[in-house]
């Protein structure tokens, strides 16, 4: 447990407080990192420009400045909006992100709460955001928001299924729902009898990895699945009426969720905090682990954002068809084959 590093015995409430604070700091920080590195810098480079340059060294503080700007803005609530629901929606979205962070392991002992059903919990809470999105879309009393919210609702539910089914393959192979156990399973695994590199599940579960990446793209409502927020038709979709810090909540939620999903993908398929050559039981793993996890997250996030900046978007009916007709059968087939192989081998 985390308190062991500091060799301090803490009371339960103290532990909880620290954990809450860590998560509360992590969410904006990770969102900022993703926003700066990918949304501002990488997108700019891919479009042959340099991105923001003025705020901070090489413009790295631009997003922080934007955040401050959002905080200063007037909080506008439309006249005919359902005020309570309108105000609650961003909180719901952010809460779902917040809860996802609870089960992310960053080292053998660095985890906020090692739930035995960790990945199941993550899938469950991440689908909470649908509720927030629908609340936002419905309460805004705006047709664009309504259309965006409904599209988002349909899309998030449709892609929740392939997401979970993709995870199932990994779970079957690891034999556990706990995030830590999945990492251990990959660290202890062996490739063709050679155990030095362990067995990142991306090798055996490449189909699941593909489905997972597609599904999180859709869950994040990013291109090519960004029809719910398509700015060229529904002008931002469910958050079209939000300003100031409420919009900031959505923004943070989007990028923190991207980070969380990237972390889950890194943990499930790339071995999480585990690095070949470092004894997972040593204290060193607690220091190298977060760095390794961060690097792996950035690799996954790079893929997510690379797709985002390259592809045009699907139409809503096309992406539904894609989910139900192709992704889900594929995921089911993957589970079946994995199950058979696990039993046979």
């Amino acid at each position, binding site marked *: 447990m985390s308190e062991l590093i500091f060799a301090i015995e803490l009371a339960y409430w103290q532990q909880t407080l620290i954990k809450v604070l860590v998560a509360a700091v992590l969410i904006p920080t990770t969102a900022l990192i993703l926003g700066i590195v990918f949304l501002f810098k990488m*997108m700019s480079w*891919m*479009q*042959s*420009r340099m991105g923001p340059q003025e705020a901070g060294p090489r413009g790295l503080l631009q997003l922080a400045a934007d955040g401050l700007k959002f905080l200063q803005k007037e909080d506008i609530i439309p006249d005919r909006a359902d005020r309570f629901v309108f105000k609650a929606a961003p909180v719901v979205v952010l809460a779902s992100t917040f809860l996802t962070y609870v089960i992310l392991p960053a080292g053998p002992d660095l985890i906020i709460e090692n739930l035995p059903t960790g990945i199941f919990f993550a899938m469950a809470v991440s689908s909470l955001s649908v509720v927030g999105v629908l609340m936002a879309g419905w309460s805004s009393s705006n*047709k*664009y928001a309504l*259309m965006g919210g409904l599209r988002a609702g349909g899309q998030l539910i449709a892609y929740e299924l392939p997401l979970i089914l993709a995870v199932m393959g990994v779970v079957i192979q690891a034999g556990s729902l706990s995030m830590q156990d999945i990492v251990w399973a990959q660290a202890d695994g062996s490739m063709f009898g050679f155990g030095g590199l362990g067995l990142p599940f991306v090798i055996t579960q490449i189909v699941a990895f593909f489905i997972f990446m597609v599904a999180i793209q859709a869950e994040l409502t990013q*291109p*090519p699945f*960004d*029809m719910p927020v*398509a*700015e*060229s*038709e*529904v*002008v931002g979709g469910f958050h079209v009426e939000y300003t100031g810090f409420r919009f900031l909540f959505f923004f943070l939620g989007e990028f923190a969720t991207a980070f969380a999903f990237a972390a889950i993908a890194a943990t499930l398929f790339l071995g999480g905090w585990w690095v070949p050559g470092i004894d997972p039981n040593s204290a060193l793993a607690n220091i190298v682990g977060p760095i390794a996890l961060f690097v792996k997250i950035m690799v996954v996030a790079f893929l997510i954002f690379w797709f985002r*900046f*390259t*592809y*045009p*978007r*699907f*139409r*809503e*009916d*096309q992406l539904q068809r894609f989910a139900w007709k192709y992704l889900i059968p594929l995921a089911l087939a993957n589970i079946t084959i994995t199950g058979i192989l696990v039993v046979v081998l």
Partner: protein
Amino acid sequence: MTVTDSQKMAYVAAQAADARVNLQFETEDGMTLNMGPQHPATHGTLRIVAQLDGEQVVRCEPIPGYMHRGYEKLCEVRTYPQVTTLINRIDWLGSFANEVPFILAAEKLMDVEAPPRAQVIRTILFELSRLGNISLFLGDLGIQLGGITIGFYAFRDREFVLNQIEAATGGRFHPNFDRIGGLKDDLPKGWIAETHRAMDRMRRLCDEFEELVLGNEIFQARTRGIGVIPADIATSYGMSGANLRATGVDWDLRRDACPPGLSYDLADWKVWTHPDGDSYARTWVRLQEVRESTHIVDQLLDSIPAGPIMAKVPRIIKVPEGEAWVATENPLGEMGYYVVSKGDLVPFRVKIRSASFNNISVVPWVTRGVFVPDVITIMASLYFILGDIDR
């Protein structure tokens, strides 16, 4: 002045009329989605009122006029050389191309012809403005469909074309370079070589567009079979340019009815058509047109004859009495000017036939029963410039 008072009244009445339109739409069945006039999909201020049943469009009507500047009236108080400044701003992306048909109409009435060198340079600039215009279409289409990256590429490479237009004419967007009987000035040194390089950049943009957008399976799923316009409907609506050629009608004013004063016959080129008539076909035809256009420019650049650039015209231009209709194949389609002269300094009547006006009037016909995202695809693939609709 009493007129301003009545204008004030007209404004109030207009607000009320707008409210009435909204009410009328609201009280009918289904949901009415009002896109614009300030909507990201309507680069410019075009309002689209769509009546929806779920996500399906029952009726969709574009409402232009938010940028109507009354050029036909304004032309009646401007002398012939002054008119070109004004009509630059009709299709503001292909601005030089706007001047040409008007100047040709005036030349026809005055019975003068530009010297060969001026004709070739005029044609080159005409094609450059086509490149500047359609390259932005390629980028804009990507942006409308969610792939924003190609938009930046288009802006990046269009810059080379605009730089060439600026280096020759002095104006990036509003060259005002065409004159009755020739051109304002000759080309600066080094321009030809630099333009060849710009053409290479444009061809690279075409390749990138093909790889990034046109070849993308998602893009094809979004555009193939969407917004199909048969040839019969297209001619009935008077659609022109790539929109008409995408319906399979082999009709290009540059080749088939090139007015004297442009020298397309010096180049060896091809008119592309596509039989499908859908959004993909329109995009494909435009992409091929950009490629073809770079080849036209390349060939003409190597065949600029030596000589003067202005024919002998009087300093004070009075155009003899008569009527003339000249249409050219502008980036957006057929643009024509019906100029009526009474032998005065100013034209008596100028009817401006702009391409987007006819091209966009087909929208109510083509959007029945499509989905809301397809409205965006169709509008983007029909490609309009608001100044070209509203004039």
